[in-house]
């Protein structure tokens, strides 16, 4: 008999689902769904009280509609009602609805919590499990506050049923993840650890997830789990395939639990106790031995389960990195898998070997598989596997095999999948630089890279090759010769033209002795590409030309002729025109001495972190490229550039590289903007960050007592108002970014409450220490907003990101923004900056739909002069209707269609929710496309609100 009763379902539901399935078109389906939604809505709103069965049926229909991808914005209340039903099936569907369609609507959470509380104390295990499930799935802070104290008790109580214990363990884990501060393990620690000894394997399975998470955070308090885990593992590993009965899966005893135990052990170093360690090594050896035994079943599930344990065991061996014997065995085992017929195993073997390659004991052993891995890169049908092979080649690369690996990667690039080309290009560039012994090889490799995959060669890669050529005398002649040859190809990539232009402009003289590459030949070759290139490249070429005039006086008249032509000197692009005019003038009025000084060879670049490594790291996300690797890259880079001080930022390097002729600036002839606008804004921001904000410059003039200064600890960055304005109509995005730090923001608002997540990302490879943030409400804002911020970790590793949660309660309406002050030390220097948190009054809007008649009636009621604020202003952005609509919707009010008689105008309505009161607001925006002007009128029941909204909005359009 099937365990699920198919017949006793809800008939109405089955009919509805059949209807949907019979719909011939998407439109018909939507129509049917809307009809049903209207029906349910009216049933829920109707006067007649619904019985439990009907509620259950309708809630289930809503769930089905949600599954089809439609938003469900009602029914929550009915679902909550079902929670207190004493019928199991009604309760069950109520909890399911809440878990799937969770809405952190605070009032409902309180009701839900009440129901959960009742069920937890009901002593009915099935009800308790439902309640625990709900907590674990929703996991909101309010739930943690209500239940974090109770659940550990349920978990360790002697009379708790096993199934409830299992649920309690995972429930607690969820609460710990969301609100670690509320889950206090203290007295429970030892009893929770001892769950590893529980008789019931299901309890151990659930508990081990909890213990693993707790151990990661508090390794010392939980370290007794190591010996318990080892003995549990040992008992499983040595048991026969039938000992564990139900927990034996396709002849493998408790595979899931074994994996989890091995994962838990990876949170700790090798056990210090000799006996425990001996037992563990024995287990690992047994697991490795079993891999060689003939399979007990031909089913793929059998080998999957067995290998799941094997891979975790190998991970643990790699993690310990202390048993050469086991490491080599692990490597051999993976080597076998590299040629296994199961794709999954080949994939996992490549992945594990990647970590194995970084161990000194096994690096050489990994290298012996190079041919197999190269073969995988060439022949695997699955891109996921090829990607792993490329990663492994990158990881096993060292001086001895760099040439072979780089050559293979280059040849693979010609046919590589588009999705991984960019990453491959970065990897080739890094390996070529890191392991270059002779630099002609390096130059060849990078030029090949541009030739094969020019489109995927990012700016960083070609900047880097130029930096290296400029810093190394011994390769300059070779580089000039090679680019010259590369440029002779009939079609060459624009990046090649950039590198060619730059290098010939600097070092073309080194090959000018050969009549085949005489100055004029070089110039003509470059100029033949000119018309095919984009503006920035043309600008770069013009700079190369003026450098030619200095290097080769004999080309002067030819080049002047080119500069003088209408297509240059009257070019419609301002930058090109300016360069042509200035360079022409420079070449005709400056003496050779001045010219030689101005157009001197570029000085060596100061050494800095390879921008390519930084880019790869960014692409792969934190953790993918270890900090070690970066450090190593730096060290190697230092060698290569002959040392030099670090500390510049790569954006400035970039601007140097792409504006090859700072000479123009030297003469002061230049007034236009630089070609790449990358550096200036970042540069000026840096000044702000590095200056210790809060030290008032006008100290000697100021007569104010020092206490005033401490009250206002820091002045926000000058651009912080602009940053604030960026977030008026949106809730998520990047709040701030400079060379060191990026601050991302995510926020959500409900009624008068808001929650903001700030993400602080360390963009450097060096850790930030004593990182602290403070949020303050200056002046009267203190009494208007209640802002609470959780402390952040004081240490941010290079490339890592930490998160901070800020809770906001709007007490009454306000105009200022809270200030966020950030302090940290980076390489010894104190950084201090202050920003405005983008909390603006409109965030607390609740949209209000109303008909035309109502709108104008309300509008008339708000007729006191001070209730209205109006602004007429010029459009700052294109007057695109869709963009305007999106912005107004982002504002949080309801955008009312067909209300204003003039269809060009926009009207909106909303209510601002504050703790003290609700402020109704109406808005009308009248665009005048001809004059490119707007008239904005805001009316609300409170004058300060009208004024503030008007100010905020006038900056948005």
């Amino acid at each position, binding site marked *: 008999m*099937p*365990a*699920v*009763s*198919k017949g*006793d*379902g809800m008939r109405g539901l*089955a009919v509805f*689902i059949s209807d949907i*399935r019979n719909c011939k078109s998407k439109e018909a389906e939507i129509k049917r769904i809307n009809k049903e939604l209207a029906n349910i809505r009216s049933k829920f709103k109707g006067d007649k009280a619904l019985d439990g069965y009907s509620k259950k049926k309708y809630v289930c229909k809503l769930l089905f509609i949600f*599954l*089809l*991808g439609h*938003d469900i914005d009602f029914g929550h209340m009915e679902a909550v009602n079902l929670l207190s039903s004493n*019928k*199991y*099936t009604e309760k*069950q569907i109520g909890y*399911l609805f809440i878990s*799937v369609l*969770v809405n952190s609507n605070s009032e409902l959470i309180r009701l839900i919590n009440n129901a959960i509380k009742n069920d937890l104390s009901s002593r009915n295990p*099935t009800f308790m499990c439902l309640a*625990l*499930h709900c907590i*674990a*799935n929703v*996991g909101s802070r309010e739930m943690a506050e209500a239940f974090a104290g109770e659940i550990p008790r349920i978990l360790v109580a002697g009379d708790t049923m096993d199934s409830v214990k*299992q*649920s309690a363990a*995972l429930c607690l*884990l*969820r609460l710990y993840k969301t609100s670690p501060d509320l889950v206090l393990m203290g007295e429970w620690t030892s009893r929770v650890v001892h769950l590893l000894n529980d008789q019931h*394997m*299901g309890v151990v*399975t*659930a508990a081990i*997830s909890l213990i693993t998470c707790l151990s990661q955070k508090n390794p010392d308090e939980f370290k007794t789990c190591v010996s318990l885990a080892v003995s549990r593992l040992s008992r499983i590993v040595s048991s026969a395939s039938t000992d564990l009965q*139900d*927990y034996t*899966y396709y002849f493998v005893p408790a*595979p*899931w*639990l074994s*994996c989890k135990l091995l*994962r838990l052990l990876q949170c700790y170093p090798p056990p210090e106790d000799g006996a425990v360690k001996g037992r563990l090594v024995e287990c690992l050896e047994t697991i490795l031995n079993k891999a060689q035994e003939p399979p007990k079943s031909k089913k793929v599930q059998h080998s*999957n*389960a067995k*290998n*799941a344990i094997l*891979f975790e065991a190998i991970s643990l061996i790699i993690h310990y990195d202390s048993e050469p014997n086991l490491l080599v065995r692990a490597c051999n085992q993976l080597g076998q898998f590299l040629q296994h017929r199961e*794709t*999954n195993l080949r*994939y996992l073997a490549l992945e594990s070997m990647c970590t194995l390659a970084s161990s000194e004991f096994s690096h050489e052993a990994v290298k012996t598989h190079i041919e197999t891995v190269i073969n995988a890169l060439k022949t695997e049908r*699955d891109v*996921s*596997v090829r*990607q792993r092979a490329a990663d492994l080649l990158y990881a096993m690369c060292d001086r001895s095999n760099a040439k072979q690996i780089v050559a293979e990667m280059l040849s693979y690039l010609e046919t590589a999948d588009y999705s991984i080309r960019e990453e491959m290009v970065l990897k080739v560039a890094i390996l070529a630089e890191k392991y270059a012994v002779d630099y002609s090889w390096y130059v060849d490799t990078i030029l090949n890279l541009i030739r094969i995959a020019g489109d995927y060669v990012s700016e960083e890669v070609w900047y880097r090759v130029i930096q290296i050529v400029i810093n190394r005398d011994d390769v300059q002649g070779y580089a000039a010769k090679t680019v010259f040859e590369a440029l002779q190809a009939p079609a060459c990539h624009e990046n090649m033209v950039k590198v060619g232009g730059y290098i010939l402009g600097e070092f073309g003289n080194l090959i000018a002795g050969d009549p085949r590459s005489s100055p004029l030949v070089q110039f003509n070759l470059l100029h033949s590409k000119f018309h095919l290139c984009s503006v920035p490249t043309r600008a770069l070429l013009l700079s190369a030309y003026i450098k030619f005039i200095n290097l080769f006086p004999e080309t002067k008249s030819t080049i002047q002729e080119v500069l003088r032509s209408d297509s240059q000197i009257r070019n419609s692009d301002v930058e090109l025109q300016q360069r042509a005019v200035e360079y022409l003038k420079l070449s005709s009025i400056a003496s050779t001495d001045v010219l030689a000084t101005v157009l001197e060879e570029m000085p060596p670049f100061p050494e800095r972190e390879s921008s390519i490594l930084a880019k790869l790291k960014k692409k*792969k*996300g934190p*953790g993918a490229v270890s900090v070690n690797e970066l450090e190593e890259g730096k060290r190697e880079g230092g060698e290569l550039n002959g040392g030099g001080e670090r500390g510049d930022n790569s954006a400035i390097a970039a601007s140097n590289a792409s504006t090859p002729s700072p000479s123009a600036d030297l003469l002061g002839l230049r007034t236009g903007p630089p070609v790449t606008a990358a550096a200036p804004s970042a540069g000026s921001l840096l000044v702000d960050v590095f200056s210790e904000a809060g030290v008032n410059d006008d100290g000697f003039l100021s007569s104010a007592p020092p206490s005033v200064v401490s009250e206002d600890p820091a002045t926000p960055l000058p651009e912080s108002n602009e940053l604030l304005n960026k977030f008026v109509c949106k809730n998520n995005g990047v709040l701030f970014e400079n060379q060191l730090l990026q601050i991302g923001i995510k926020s959500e608002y409900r009624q008068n409450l808001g929650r903001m997540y700030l993400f602080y990302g360390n963009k450097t490879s060096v850790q930030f220490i004593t990182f602290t943030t403070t949020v303050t409400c200056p002046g009267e804002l203190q009494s208007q907003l209640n802002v609470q911020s959780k402390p952040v970790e004081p240490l941010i590793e290079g490339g890592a990101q930490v998160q901070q949660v800020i809770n906001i309660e709007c007490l009454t309406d306000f105009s200022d923004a809270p200030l966020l002050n950030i302090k940290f030390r980076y390489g010894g220097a104190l950084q201090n900056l202050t920003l405005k948190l983008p909390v603006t009054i409109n965030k607390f809007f609740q949209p209000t739909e109303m008909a035309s008649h109502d709108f104008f009636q309300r509008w008339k009621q708000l007729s006191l002069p001070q209730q209205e604020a109006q602004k007429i202003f010029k459009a700052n952005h294109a007057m695109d209707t869709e963009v305007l609509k999106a912005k107004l919707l982002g504002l949080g009010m309801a955008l009312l269609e067909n209300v204003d008689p003039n269809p060009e105008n926009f009207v909106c309505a909303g209510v601002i929710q504050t703790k003290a009161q609700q402020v109704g607001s109406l808005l009308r925006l009248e665009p005048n496309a001809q004059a490119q002007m707007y008239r904005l009128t805001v009316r609300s029941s409170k004058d300060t609100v009208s004024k503030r909204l008007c100010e905020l909005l006038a900056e948005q359009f």
Partner: protein
Amino acid sequence: MIKAILIFNNHGKPRLIRFYQYFAEDMQQQIIRETFHLVSKRDDNVCNFLEGGSLIGGSDYKLIYRHYATLYFVFCVDSSESELGILDLIQVFVETLDKCFENVCELDLIFHMDKVHYILQEVVMGGMVLETNMNEIVAQVELQNRMEKSEVNQVI
């Protein structure tokens, strides 16, 4: 941790979605579409693991999936899970469905979405594995079933 469990058919029609990390509804839909797009273009005999989904959790995020007849079962997980372990888990879930429904097919999932959810709840809770023993899971489902039956009988 399991971030989400998605079941959809060969045409990308969702048959069960369960998120264990909060995402707004439109984001959920986007994740389903992206996942279907990634998974559906793969041959049947390539590997069952896949990276490249951009919407959940960045680089620490893998799709582990199995394709059964008309349905894809996709588990979106982070690196704390064993890949082969999750494959086993999918198998356990599907075998359990098969036991509970007797030769489960897509129609069962459509008409008994709630039941499928309840069965899943016996296997995964809040993104973590609750139970892997199929007999235990089926026993729990049968218990629920008996309670349902007794309620129906009370009404009659």
